[in-house]
C-alpha cells in the first residue's frame, strides 16, 4: 500500500518538532532552516500550517530537471533528488508550483522531502498527530469521518 503524508493544520501548535526531526534525519543537525517541512504561522488568525511536498504523480520538478536528477522512488512514491547528479541549476525550484523544492547554499544542490524512505520522521515526531502517514488513497478519511460524525448529530 502506498502511503502519503496527511496534514491536519487545525491540530498544529507550531512547536516545530517536525522541522527538528526532519533536519536531524536529513542533515544530522537540529535546524529548522534546513527542514524539508515548514510550519507557517498566521499570527493574526492564530493558525499554524505545516507544508511540504505532496509527491505529485506527474511531478513538475522531475519533468523540469534537465539532468534527470529527480527520480521516482517506486516503493514509496516519493520523488527523490540524486544529490550527486544534481547540478544546482534550480529549474525544479521554479517548476514546482508549491515551492517545496529548495536550494541549499552549503551543498550547492537542491533538496526536498523524500518521505525518509518510507518512515517519515516528521509524522513520528508530531505530538498532536497533525501529521500522519496514511493510506495514499484515503488521506481524506479523517475529515470525512469528522463530517460524518457532525451530520449524525
Amino acid at each position, binding site marked *: 500500500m502506498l502511503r502519503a503524508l496527511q496534514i491536519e493544520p487545525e491540530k498544529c*501548535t*507550531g*512547536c516545530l518538532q517536525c522541522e*527538528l526531526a526532519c533536519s536531524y534525519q536529513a542533515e544530522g*543537525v*537540529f*535546524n*529548522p*532552516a534546513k527542514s524539508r517541512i515548514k510550519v507557517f504561522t498566521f499570527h493574526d488568525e492564530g493558525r499554524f500550517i505545516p507544508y511540504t511536498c505532496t509527491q505529485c504523480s506527474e511531478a513538475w520538478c522531475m519533468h523540469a530537471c534537465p539532468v534527470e536528477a529527480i527520480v521516482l522512488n517506486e516503493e514509496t512514491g516519493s520523488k527523490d533528488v540524486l544529490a550527486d547528479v544534481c547540478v544546482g541549476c534550480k529549474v525544479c525550484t521554479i517548476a514546482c508550483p508549491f515551492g517545496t523544492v529548495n536550494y541549499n547554499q552549503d551543498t550547492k544542490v537542491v533538496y526536498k522531502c523524500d518521505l525518509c524512505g518510507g518512515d517519515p520522521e516528521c509524522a513520528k515526531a508530531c*505530538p498532536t498527530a497533525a501529521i500522519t502517514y496514511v493510506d495514499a488513497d484515503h488521506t481524506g478519511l479523517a475529515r470525512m469521518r469528522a463530517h460524518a460524525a457532525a451530520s449524525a448529530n
Partner: protein
Amino acid sequence: MAWANNVLRVNLTEGTTSNEPLNMEWAGLYLGQRGLATKYLAEEIDPKCDALGSGNKLIMTTGPLTGTMASTGGRYSVVTKSPLTGAVACSNSGGFIGAELKAAGYDMIIFEGKSPRPVYLYVENDKVEIAPADEIWGQSVWAADEWLHKKYQDPLLRIAAVGRAAEKGCLYAAVVNDLHRAAGRSGVGTVMASKNLKAVAVRGTKGVGNIKDPGAFMQAVNAGKKVLAENAVTGQGLPTYGTQVLMNVINEVGAMPTRNMREVQFEGASKISAEAMHEPRESDGKPNLVTNAGCFGCTIACGRISTIDRGHFSIENKPQYWGASGGLEYEAAWALGSDTGVDDIDALTYANFICNEDGIDPISFGATVAAAMELYQIGAITKEQTGGVELKFGSAEALAWATEVTCRGEGFGLDLGMGSKRLCEKYGHPDLSMTVKGQEFPAYDPRGIQGMGLTYATSNRGACHLRSYTVSSEVMGVPEKTDPLVTEGKPELVKAFQDATSIVDSSGLCVFTTFAWTLEDIAPQVAAACGGDWTAESMLEAGERIWNLEREFNLAAGLTAADDTLPKRLLTEPAQTGPAKGNVNRLHEMLPKYYEVRGWNEQGVPTDETRQRLSL
C-alpha cells in the same frame, strides 16, 4: 557537546563586539543558562552597582538543550541585576529566539556598558552588527518587530525587544520576544533600555549538531516526550486550558489573592477562568480562545492565542487589536483580574495584549494597580493624581486606562511604573505593598498555601512562584501530596524545589515539564547531549550550588536576612473565607529551620562548610 562553546560579548559603550569560548569549567559546575550566566554576572559586575548604570551587564543566555529536539528545548533567560529588587534577576522565556540564537552559534550574549545612542543588535550567524535604532526608539515592541522584519525582508528573523514602558523607566519592564513571549519579571527590560539597546534580532541557520551521544539522546528525548504526553497535566490540562487550568482550583483552595491580597477568594474567578476562555461569547459566537500554541520544540503547548470581543469598549475603534494574539496565562489573569477585582475577561485580555505590546510584567503591573486601588479607596490617592479616573476595585475601565498610561509611560502611569513598593511608600502606606524584596507577589496566597510563604520570603529574585513551586506538592500532589496548611516539612520541601528548579532553568528546558518529569527524566537527556556524568543527583547538587551563588550575590549586593520576610498583612491578617479561614502565614515556624537545612548561619549566610561542599 550541546553547548556552542561560543560567547558573544557586545560592548555598547565602545560599539564593539567580540567572541570568546565558553568557560567550560564553569559549565561543568553550573550547566548553562540561569546558573552559568549568573556565574558570569557574579564574576564580572560589582553586586552593589547601580542596576540602571553602565556598570551593570545584561546577559541573554541559552542552555545546553536549547535548540535541540528535547521537548520544550527552546528556552533562554535574561540575567542581570534587577532595578526593582536590587537582587540578581533571571527571567526565563520561551518562544523561538533562544533556539535561534543557539542555531546562530552562540551560548550567550553579554551586553556591557551603555550605548551613547539607541541601537539594536543584529545577528546572522557569524555576522554581528550594532545598528542605529533611532527609528524605533519611542515605539512599542510590536512596532519595532514589524520595522525590523520589513527592514531585513526576512519573515524568519526572531526578535526580542523592549517597549516604551522600559524606555520611560518602568521598573518592571520585560524583554518581549516573538511578540508575546516574555522574560517578564524583575525589570530585565528596564536594564536593557537603560543601555539604549532597543532590540536583538537573530537569524541562525547553523543549527545545533554537536550532540555527544546522538543515539542515547534521541532515545531519552522520545522517552521524555512519552512521559509528557501520558501525564494528565502536561498531556491534557495544559494544552487544553493552559496555566489557567489553575484559576478555579486555587480559588477553591482559598489561596486566590484578591483585591490587593485582602481576601483569598474571588467571586468572579469563574468568569476569568480557563473554562470561560472556551465559552462562546454572545456577540459573535466565538470563544476568547482561538487555539493553543507551543514554544520551540514543546510537545506540551500551553500557550494561549486569543481574541477580544470586537464590540468590547477597550477595542471598539481599534482594529489593530482585532486579530489574535497572546492570551491570558493564569498569572496575568489573576494579577489583572482577581487582584484588581475585575472580572471582565475581554478587559483582561486587552490589558494582557498591551502588556505584551509595550513590554511590562503583568504580574507586577496588576499587583501595583491593586495597591493603587486600595490607596484610592482609603483616599491616599485621589482623582487629582489619576486625572479624574475613578481607580476603583472592579473597574474594567480603570484597568484599561491604567494599562495604557503605564505602557506608554504617561502621567500617573509613571507612578504605577515604579511598582507597588515605591508607590505605597510615596503615598504614605508602605504596609499596603504586597511585595518581597520589592517584587510583587504572584497568584498564590501564602495564608492558604504555607510553603509558598517560605518560597516568597526566601526567593532570590523577590516574590516569585517560579523559584520553588510547592503548589505542585501542596495542592496538586506532585510528586507527593503535602498539607497546604501545615508548616512542618516545608523548609525541606522548599529547598528541594528551589534546587531542582535552579537546574531545570539552567538546562534550556521549560519548568512546566516538571509537572510530569523529575530530574530522573531530565538527566539522561542532559547527559547524552552534554557528555560528562550528569545524573539526577549531580543535577540537584548543581541546583543547590546555583541557589547559593545567587544568595551570595544578593548578600554582597547588600540584602540581608531581614529581607527574607513577608508583608505584615500576610503574617497578621487571617484569611476570612475558604479552607484556609483563620490562617495567617506562619513564616516564623519555617524560616529558622530553612536556614538550617540550607547550611546557612542564623543570619542566612552560607557557612564555610556549605561553601566548600558546593565548591563555591
